[in-house]
């Protein structure tokens, strides 16, 4: 089925397959007051998803269950529960190899358990979308927000986007398929958010019409053959490179990896068009810039408001995509900044490391504040870091985490 040929026709639920640009940019929107999990459901309702595979792990379980309701209502071709996160991601690959548009969700230890599959998805050029509702990873167990798992995902060859709000989530689930299914991209997308903060809080979200849906996935535009059991990437373990020890097989595998990362690069053009840039700036000419992704951006906005009351002007750079990495955009946005503050919800400060690798004069960068293991990030601690950077003495916010 060619995608263009079905535009204007109806699916079995009476939704009209609509040109994605019309649906996302021109169609009227109505407001709804939803949790992030409910927003995931509403986006998937309009995404013409063929297969969703679920496995419970907090904080994505609710979204996975809600999508089960969509299946019961007839909006999804197939829906089932896997045996584990590892199994789910393998089953997602099977469905995508067969030419289906696939959706799944995971979080924290589930992401780590499934990790082997993510570079496999990317190497096999499968445009699967996985929602990652980030939470703590290490023992002792935590189900609370923590973005450490993103630092693992960014090395897999997947596209990795980091949503700040439920509205981002809604729009990016739908736009994500449009980017990741482009034949020159054709990569899986890990659409991440900070668990609980986004999934379990309610927000006003502007929704596209229920009777419109994305055009279906067209597997014949894939850069690798669909369901070809004789050739890699479907045929993985017999004959191909893994079984051979010679220069040719190594060189082919190296070229294969390069091609995956080339596809990440190619996604830039499409992502910029769909997301209106890889970053967003406010008061970009300020001497002090707060550079963040996910809900650290929201906390940053409040910190900026508090600082304004003290007469301190701070700008904001919101990073939307981690892969593709907006290195040039960040370099340009921060070129005149005297202080760059990078707040993060994780212990290692992976975002600050990425930014440091992209900008000159890295002593301008303050990799703080960091909170993790479910701690909240009060705007006051961001204020405090900025004032410290300016040499202004502040009170310690003990016991406020």
């Amino acid at each position, binding site marked *: 089925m060619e995608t263009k040929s079905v535009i204007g026709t109806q699916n079995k639920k009476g939704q009209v397959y609509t040109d994605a640009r019309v649906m996302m940019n021109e169609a009227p929107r109505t407001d709804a007051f939803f949790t992030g999990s409910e927003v995931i459901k509403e986006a998937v309702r309009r995404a013409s998803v063929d297969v969703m595979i679920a496995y419970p792990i907090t904080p994505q379980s609710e979204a996975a269950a809600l999508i089960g309701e969509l299946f019961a209502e007839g909006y999804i071709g197939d829906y089932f529960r896997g045996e584990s996160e590892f199994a789910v991601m393998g089953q997602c690959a099977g469905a995508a190899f067969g030419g289906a548009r696939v959706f799944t969700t995971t979080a924290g230890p589930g992401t780590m358990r499934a990790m082997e599959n993510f570079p496999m998805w990317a190497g096999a050029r499968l445009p699967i979308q996985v929602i990652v509702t980030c939470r703590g990873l290490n023992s002792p167990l935590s189900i609370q927000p923590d973005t450490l798992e993103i630092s693992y995902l960014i090395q897999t060859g997947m596209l990795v986007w980091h949503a700040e709000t439920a509205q981002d989530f809604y729009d990016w689930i739908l736009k994500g398929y449009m980017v990741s299914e*482009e034949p*020159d991209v054709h990569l899986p997308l890990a659409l991440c958010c900070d668990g609980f903060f986004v999934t379990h809080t309610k927000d006003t979200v502007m929704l596209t019409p229920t009777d419109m849906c994305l055009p279906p996935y067209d597997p014949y535009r894939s*850069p690798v053959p669909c369901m070809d059991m004789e*050739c890699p990437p479907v045929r993985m373990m017999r004959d191909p490179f893994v079984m051979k020890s010679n220069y*040719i097989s190594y060189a*082919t595998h190296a070229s294969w990896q390069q*091609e995956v990362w*080339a596809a990440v*690069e*190619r996604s830039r053009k499409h992502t910029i068009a769909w997301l209106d840039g890889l970053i967003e700036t406010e008061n970009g000419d300020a001497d002090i810039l707060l550079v963040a992704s996910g809900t650290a951006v929201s906390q940053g906005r409040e910190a900026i408001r508090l600082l304004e009351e003290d007469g301190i002007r701070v700008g904001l750079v919101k990073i939307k995509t981690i892969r593709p990495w907006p290195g040039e955009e960040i370099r340009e946005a921060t070129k005149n900044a005297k202080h760059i503050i990078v707040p993060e919800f994780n212990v290692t400060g992976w975002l600050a490391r990425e930014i440091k690798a992209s900008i000159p004069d890295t002593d301008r960068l303050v990799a703080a504040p960091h909170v993790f293991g479910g701690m909240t990030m009060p705007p006051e601690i961001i204020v405090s870091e900025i004032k410290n950077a300016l040499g202004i003495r502040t009170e310690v916010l003990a016991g406020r985490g």
Partner: protein
Amino acid sequence: MTQYRVLPGPEHFLPPSAASMGIKLPNPGEGHIHGVIVPEEQAMEEAARQFLMARVPTIFPGPLVLWAWNEKAAKKATAVRHLYETIKECVAPQQKPMLIPMPDYRPKYPKINPEVEINPNHPNLTIWHNKIDCCMFVGVHCHQANLSLKIIRGGTNCFTIAMCAQAGHEDAMLSFRDATPEKIMRLAEWVRKLKGSVKPPEVVSKKEKSAG
């Protein structure tokens, strides 16, 4: 703006992907030559010129045009054959046009027969064996075409052209996008149009040949 250019090799033990060096794909109606975006007609003219200048101009049709899996594929295959016949008609006697299929993408060991096929996992073998100095990929899945194009750029001095049905290929030295049977026929027209205006390669003596 990148200074990198996609040029005939041998470039490197492991050359970078052109995309990682900042080369961008053309938009509809455009092509690229050496990574520089140009109007499609300019790319047509240059591709035709490269075919006419080459000692062994070769077309590598892939599975998407080798098998009549839909009407469009059959038409495209006819157009590819027409392009090949046109090149044969338009070149000098010392030039040797070839049409070598890439029937599938299976890694074949210990090696393929380079007389009869090209394989994306070691395309350089076919290029070397047949002394191909200009080639065009058509009907090859994009991922496999990029593998081949990059390996060819790494290890040979062959000028590579991609007639891509999707978004084009940065790893080729010249690329078209949105290939249709009509576009392939138009390239054949360009070859015919330039016939006689492009200096063919000089005849290689037996002595030179044996010197390699």
